[in-house]
């Protein structure tokens, strides 16, 4: 069918060629160019456009005109002979309209062929009537064969699947492909196994790499520790203790080192005392079923241990005997932090309140401090008991007057305190709080992940004295007892213990990756040279950060009344 179409088209070309002489050869050439170009770029044509073209613009030879049953008023021959340039133009259009497009259903020529049903005999007659100058049948054959040779290599499928399995062709193909005929190409019958390990694993690692690569202040040392030239600190812990089940929670405070050289650590519902002098471990008891220990803190003399529970109860334990003395109920939420000043045990609660418990009296709640909207996770008494600082999940640092009113109030009501200073500079939860032992009005506070800033406040004037950004979340802060330095512990990504000089706030030392997980808790030894850190990797590590002061220095310092002596032992009952 299609071959027939080609013939028709070509015939039409020939007729016009006859009419127009030399001009026609160029037209013929154009037609071929068009045809080849059309076969490559298939421009879709709307049926309406096609119809218009076929009715009005196609100049038809008489033979074809009769074949089409369309009525044309003008004589097509006249039109063809009178205007040569519009004709060639129209010719091109006709060619473009009549080009065979493989698979083109709406091809114009298909329409023509549908109309062109008369038997070949009639066309023969018509051709004979007109002057046969050129042997058309030869021409036709020539052109069509040209057409075929032109189109054949263009089709890839035909090249890939040669229609004839001619041996010479196969040989030629084999030679061209470089495959010797007497060779076989064999493949193993099974496909290779799929990768057993997760293929996205490497990708995930790739994605995670920038998190590690861009760790702020990355150091090149293998241990990941840097120390100042003037100061050398041990980058390895002195001692590592296992702490199985230690809760990996930023808001809790599960580690305390007493003045009697005992380390208390809470592991889920149990509290353990590790005596640093002997290395003995003692279990202090279990939290009631269904709850957990959320905070521990030794009294200043080291004889008593306060334990805060997830239920809101505060327990008082005798360290020496290992018995519980009393339970102080009242809070409705988790006690995330405890702080002692003599007989006052202050508890920071999940509801944002801070209560002072007088452990000596039955009605233990003697004062309430309301100043946080979020959970209180940082609480620290100043050594002299004048001030108490609290930090919460609402990013606020409050400094309160520590004096508790003696005047009893009727009923269950307790006096409420007002914050002396409220600081809203932090942009994340404030858990780390530390009062300076050598300059009473200095308070250091450190913010969480989004903040990661150490701020040093003057508690007298309320001014911010220093602000130091750190690489990561600050989980605890300590002023060095014998040195003008601040120690900070950090969470992800550096998991570091850092030492800063004060007041220059220069980094003195950094133990990077002190733990495998974020360092959550820390406590300074009573002697003031060691620091214990606890982390989510369920271990306690003891670091020797500072040197003990020399003899004369020590006497000078002890004159200030350090908390290491047992002079301040209080009697509770």
């Amino acid at each position, binding site marked *: 069918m299609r071959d027939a179409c080609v013939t028709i088209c070509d015939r039409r070309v020939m007729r016009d060629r006859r009419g127009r002489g030399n001009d026609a050869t160029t037209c013929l050439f154009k037609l071929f160019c068009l045809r080849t170009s059309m076969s490559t770029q298939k421009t879709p044509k709307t049926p309406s456009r096609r119809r218009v073209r076929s009715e009005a613009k196609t100049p038809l030879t008489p033979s074809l005109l009769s074949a089409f049953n369309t009525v044309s008023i003008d004589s097509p021959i006249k039109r063809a002979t009178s205007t040569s340039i519009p004709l060639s133009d129209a010719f091109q259009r006709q060619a473009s309209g009549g080009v065979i497009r493989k698979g083109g259903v709406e091809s114009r020529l298909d329409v023509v062929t549908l109309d062109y049903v008369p038997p070949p005999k009639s066309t023969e007659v018509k051709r004979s009537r007109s002057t046969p100058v050129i042997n058309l049948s030869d021409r036709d054959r020539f052109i069509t064969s040209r057409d075929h040779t032109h189109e054949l290599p263009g089709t890839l499928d035909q090249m890939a699947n040669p229609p004839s399995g001619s041996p010479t062709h196969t040989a030629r193909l084999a030679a061209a492909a470089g495959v010797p005929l*007497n*060779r076989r190409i*064999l*493949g*193993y*019958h099974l496909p290779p*196994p799929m*990768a057993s*390990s997760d293929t996205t694993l490497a990708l995930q690692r790739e994605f995670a790499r920038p998190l590690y690569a861009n760790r702020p202040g990355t150091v090149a040392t293998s241990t990941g520790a840097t120390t100042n030239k003037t100061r050398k600190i041990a980058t390895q812990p002195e001692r590592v203790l296992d702490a199985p089940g230690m809760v990996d929670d930023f808001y809790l405070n599960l580690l305390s080192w007493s003045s009697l050289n005992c380390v208390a650590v809470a592991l889920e519902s149990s509290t353990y005392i590790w005596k640093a002098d002997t290395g003995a471990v003692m279990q202090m008891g279990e939290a009631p079923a269904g709850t957990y220990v959320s905070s521990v803190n030794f009294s200043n003399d080291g004889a008593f241990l306060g334990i805060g529970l997830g239920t809101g109860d505060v327990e008082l334990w005798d360290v020496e005997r290992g018995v519980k003395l009393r339970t102080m109920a009242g809070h409705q939420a988790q006690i995330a932090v405890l702080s002692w000043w003599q007989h006052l045990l202050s508890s920071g609660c999940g509801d944002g309140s801070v209560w002072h418990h007088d452990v000596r009296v039955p009605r233990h709640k003697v004062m309430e401090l309301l100043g946080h909207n979020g959970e209180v996770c940082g609480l620290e008494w100043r050594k002299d008991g004048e001030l108490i600082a609290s930090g919460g999940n609402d990013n606020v640092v409050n400094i309160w007057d520590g004096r508790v009113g003696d005047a009893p109030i009727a009923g269950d009501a307790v006096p409420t305190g007002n914050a002396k200073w409220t600081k809203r500079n932090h942009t994340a939860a404030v858990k780390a709080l530390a009062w300076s032992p050598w300059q009473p009005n200095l308070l250091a506070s450190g913010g969480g992940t989004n903040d990661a800033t150490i701020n040093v406040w003057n508690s007298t004037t309320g001014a911010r004295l220093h602000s130091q950004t750190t690489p990561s979340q600050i989980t605890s802060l300590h002023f060095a007892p014998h040195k003008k330095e601040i120690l900070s512990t950090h969470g992800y990504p550096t998991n570091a213990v850092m030492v800063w000089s004060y007041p220059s706030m220069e980094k003195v030392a950094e133990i990077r990756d002190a733990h495998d997980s974020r360092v959550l808790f820390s406590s300074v030894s009573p002697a003031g040279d060691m620091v214990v850190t606890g982390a989510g990797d369920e271990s306690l590590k003891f670091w020797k950060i500072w040197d003990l002061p020399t003899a004369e220095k020590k006497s000078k310092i002890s004159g200030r009344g350090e908390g290491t002596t047992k002079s301040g032992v209080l009697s509770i009952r």
Partner: protein
Amino acid sequence: MAPKQANRKAITLKGSTALVTEFFKYAVNTILFNREVYPSDDFQMVKKYGQTVLVTQDLALENYLEKILQQVHKWILTGSVTQLVLAILAKDTRTTLERWVFDIKLVEPSPDAKEGPGKAEAEIQSEIRAILKQITSMVTFLPVMQEDKVFNILAYTSESADVPAGEWVDTDPLAIEASKSQQVKMRSFSTDIHRIEAMVAYRYEE
């Protein structure tokens, strides 16, 4: 003299075949690792040829390669394999992305030359090392293949080759269209019996 010579040669053929087969094992592993056909987690470092080579520890893949290499070993021994091809295909479209071609040629011993001790093993090893290093360094200029990949090993054998029925089947050469392919010839190595010439063809489109 003649039987002795033949004897020596028989042993060398076996040894050479083993050497060539072993080379293929490490070459294939190196390619699979470097072209990331399998995740790098699957590979472990092994000391070989005086350098570390990454070899898969995926048991399924190991067995698969082992089965292929066993047959290849037999073919090399009978001299019926002329070419081994490791084709890397895109998993989804099955288009060939790379073809690592290893020509195996029998070295015709010159009839008159009395080649005394033959090629030293250390020398062969250093040649192998050079090829493996070259495979590794190819990564720098080969186009990055983003998609998931699978590989396929083809063996070009002679018509008369002994083919275990059902295990090896005639396949497509998995060729890359000539217009879209670029080829790089790599180093070669030779034993007294065999000469291995390596070449990589890869799909390269502007």
